[in-house]
Structures are given as C-alpha cells and as structure tokens.
C-alpha cells in the first residue's frame, strides 16, 4: 500500500467578502490512508465545509497542496480535473437542496455516468437501478419521481446513490446527517458503513457532533477557530478560545500552530484518547443523558 490516498498539506482558503478577507481555512494538513475513515470535527464557522470543498477543488485554495493518489489537484487543468472528479464525490448537508427540483430521480442518478461518458442508455439505466437498490430504495417506485416527493432521509439516500454510481474511491460527507432526524440519522450512518464496505471507499466524514463522527471514524481530527466571530473587520472583542475540552482530551498531544486569524487543524488523535473523556464533558457536548441505562 503506497502512500495515503489523500494528502493535504498547508491548505489555505480565503474568501473576499466586500472589502474584507475571511480566512476560512488556515494552514491545515492531514492525510487519509486508503480504506480509512477520517472524521473531522469542529463547530460551525471553523471552516470545515470550506475544507471539504477546497479538497475537491470546488473552491480554489489560496495556497497549499492537495494530492489525491499522488496526483496534485491544485492547478490541474479543467479536463484533467474533471477526470479526477470521477474518483471523489461529495455528499452535502441539505439533501433536498442537493437535487435539482425539476429533474426526475432516474435522470439525476444517471447524470454522473452521462458526464463521464460511461456506457449507453440501457447500461446506464441498469447501473442506476442497481445502485438505487443497494441504497435501499425500490427503483420502480423512485426513478420517475421528482425530489420534492421524498423525505429528507430518502433524498439523502438518492444523493448517496448518485455519488456511488460511478464508483468513486473517496467520499467526502459534509455534515451529511446533521439535517436529519435521529432515527433516520442512524439509518444513514449504517448505510454509509455498509457502502464503505461494499465499494471499498475511503471516507472523510465532516460533522460537528463528536458522537456521530466517532461512530463511523477510524481516526478523528479536530478543527478549531481561535477567535470569536465578529461582524466587524477589526476585532472588538478579546480573542476567545473555543471550549476544546468538548472535543479533545486535555491530555492530547496535538501540536497547535496559529497563523492568520484561525488555528491550525490539530493532528489526528488516536481513538483510545476519547475513552478517557470525563463523562460530564461528553454529556455536555452531545446532550446525551448520562443516566441512561444501557440495555
């Protein structure tokens, strides 16, 4: 097994809003080995969504390197980038908004095949039906309907089907379950694990809920923002550290580097550290009842 599948080094993403520059991601580095699931945890506003999009080059990073299977993605020409895009896919937070409201599901799920120029009409249809069955939907009932006829959980399954129909190697889940009800969330998490096994995927799972991330990840990384977000260009409030105990054990040996306005991503910590989390902190972080009797 040669090298990690995804290698991100010193990634910087900035947005210009009016006359201000927002440093969304500042000097982040990590890697994901093939077949691994890396969980990325952070509160909202810390730049994790920008990170996910920058990796796929949907947002052009200002600096840094993104290597996918030893191919440098930044600065790649559009045709080559499009070819690379077939190998990595993204699942978004809002499943209903990720589907074109005016196109039928069969059409939507076949689109990646059409864009990649794979197969012809009948082979595409067969693959679409196969992948819809795999994600737990009945193709006949689903293929000719419009997205608004489905619930959030079903739409997320359709999005997952769309991502998997071209059999990518990397799947980035950007808060893929945050907008779903608790029981549907459990279904989708189980589905992602099943799909990972079936398609031998590598997963980058981005979320703000540590328990959810922990349920599916092999390793967890934490992204944090060092300063309180303020509407003003100049900081008028004193810098405030986010409550890192909520995410990370105090005994973690994560190095911290600060550059620009936001802190760097902490390096991945092994899971055994999470088990040393005090029960009170974990309950506060996720709101789970501490006195629930396990059955």
């Amino acid at each position, binding site marked *: 097994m040669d090298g990690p599948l995804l290698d991100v080094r010193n990634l910087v993403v900035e947005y210009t809003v009016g006359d201000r520059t927002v440093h969304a991601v500042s000097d982040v580095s990590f890697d994901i080995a093939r077949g691994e699931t890396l969980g990325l945890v952070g509160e909202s506003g810390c730049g994790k969504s920008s990170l996910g*999009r920058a990796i*796929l080059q*949907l947002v052009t990073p200002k600096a840094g390197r993104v290597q996918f299977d030893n191919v440098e993605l930044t600065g790649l020409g*559009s045709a080559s*980038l*499009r*070819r690379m*895009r*077939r190998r990595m*896919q*993204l699942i*978004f*937070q*809002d499943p209903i*908004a*990720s*589907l*074109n*409201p*005016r*196109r039928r599901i069969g059409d939507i799920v076949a*689109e*990646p095949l059409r*864009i*990649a120029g794979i197969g012809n009409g009948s082979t595409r249809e067969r693959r679409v039906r196969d992948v819809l069955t795999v*994600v*737990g*939907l*009945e193709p006949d*009932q*689903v293929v000719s*309907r*419009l997205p*608004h*006829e*489905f619930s959030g*959980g*079903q739409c997320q*399954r359709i*999005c997952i089907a*769309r991502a998997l129909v071209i059999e990518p190697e990397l799947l980035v889940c950007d808060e893929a379950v945050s907008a779903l009800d608790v029981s549907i969330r459990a*279904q989708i998490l*189980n*589905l992602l*694990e*099943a799909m990972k096994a079936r398609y031998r995927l590598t997963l980058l799972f981005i979320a703000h809920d540590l328990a959810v991330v922990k349920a599916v990840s092999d390793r967890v990384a934490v992204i944090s923002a060092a300063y309180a977000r303020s509407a003003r260009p100049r900081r008028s409030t004193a810098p405030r550290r986010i409550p890192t105990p909520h995410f990370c054990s105090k005994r973690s040996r994560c190095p911290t580097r600060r550059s620009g306005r936001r802190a760097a991503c902490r390096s991945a910590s092994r899971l055994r550290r999470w088990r040393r989390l005090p029960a009170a902190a974990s309950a506060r972080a996720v709101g789970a009842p501490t006195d629930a009797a396990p*059955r």
Partner: protein
Amino acid sequence: MVYSIRGFDLAALDVEVEPIAATPASRGRLVFWLAVAWIAIVASAAIAADWLPLTSPTDMDLLARRAGPSADHWLGADALGRDLLSRLVFGARISLSVGLIAPVLGLIVGGGLGMLAGYFRGRFETLVVGGIDVLLAFPPLVLALAITTYLGQSVLNITITLGILSIPALTRVARAATLTFAEREFVTAARALGAGHGRILMRELLPNIALPLIAFFLLAVAVIIVVEGALSFLGLGIPPPAPSWGGMIAEGRDSLDAAPAIAFLPAGAMFLTVLAFNMVGDRLRALTDPRQGVL
C-alpha cells in the same frame, strides 16, 4: 440491545414511497380557463381570417358609414364604411403576431444574456447590467420614431423595435432567477460531478428558470400588445389601410359622439386579450413552485 443488527440489517434500509397526487388549486380555475378560451378564439380567428366568411377589411361601403350592427355588418361599420368585425379579426392578426413575436426576441436575447450574467457574475455581469440600464434609460418612443423614420414603417420593423425594448425586463428576470438557483447545492453537486458550464446552464439551471421566464413572457406579451396599440394610435405603427387595434381606436376618436363603438370595440378586444394574457401569466407564475405538496 433490543433492536439487533445482523450484519447491517437491510430491513432497516427498506423504504416505501407513497404516491402523491398533484394538488389542484381550486380557486380561480374557471377564470383561468375562460382566459385560455378567449386567447384560443382570438388566435384561431386571426390565423383563419382568410378563410372566414368576412368582407375584406379594406372595402369601403360608403352607404354604411358609421352604421350600427346590421345583417351586412355584424358589428357595424367605421367612418369609412369598412366592416368592423373583419377589421377586428384582421387587426387581431397584426396585434397578436407583433405581440407574440417581439417578446420572443426579448426572451431569447434577454433571457440568454440574463442567464449568463447571473451564472458567470463578475465583469460580464457588470457589462450586461450596465447595458440593460442604458437601454432602459433610452426613451422608447424616440427609438420607435427613429427606426420608423429611417427604416420605414412595417410590421417587421415594429416587431424588432418592440423586441429590443422588451429585452431589459426579461434580462432582469432571467438574471434574478439564475442568481437564486446558481447558489443552490444541486449546482455545486453538478460541478462536483465534473459537469462543465454548458451542461450546468442547460440541464440544471434552464429547467428551473424556464417557468418563471415564461410566466413573465406572457405578461410581456400583454404589455407589447398595448404598446403596439399606442404606437399605432400615434401613427407610428402599422400604416393604414392595414387594420390594427390601436389604429382603429385612433380612427374612432373622431366618431366618439356619433358611433362610439368604432373606438370601443377594438379597445374592448384589446382589453380582454391583455387581461387574458395577464391571467394566464399570473397563473403560471403561481405554479412556478415545483413543490406540489400540501403542508
């Protein structure tokens, strides 16, 4: 755990999709169909005018000047003895053809520019918006006057003039609609799949903005019919003896005391037609939302 999982229980993944019937909007349906019926009647009469048993619109029956309804002239005759009914029908031909074709020019040019401006943003958008503002600031009557003076009065020139004048409004509608949809996640999802600009514009954006554009197009038809009528009234439109509703109103001005029907009949026809297009356009705009659910 009471709910046991054997491997990953696929029973947990089964979902059924309930069929959803379309929602009828019961209020205003009758009026809508009446409007459609009126448009159909006027359009078919205009198309089939040559084959209908009508006297020629330019035949002057000097014995029947300003006559009321009679066996020869079902709706009476105008100041020069020309049959009002046949002039109305042939006038419909002019009004409808100018009214429908001019906005089509606006739709294609304006809609296309607006969609590109809303999608690509940046300097191109600034250029388009600036150009539209210039066109809007230009007094429309002066433009019409200039074109008819230098290029002559003809149906074609009037159509082109009015088409150019309808471009700004359609550009704005198209741009606004595109701005709304271009930020949605399904467009980002299409980019993540590797779709190029053309594919996104045609397959993702166009189906979504088509309906609001067409609804606005119908409203533009109504406006153009009135504007053509105004131009003809001022003598800048279709030259006599070709009948047009606006010209007939102008001619009827002198006979308002003796035979008011000469002016009011074409005015009434124009009013009803414009109203009908407005209703259909409004109805389509109300149906623009693809969501047909209940709650």
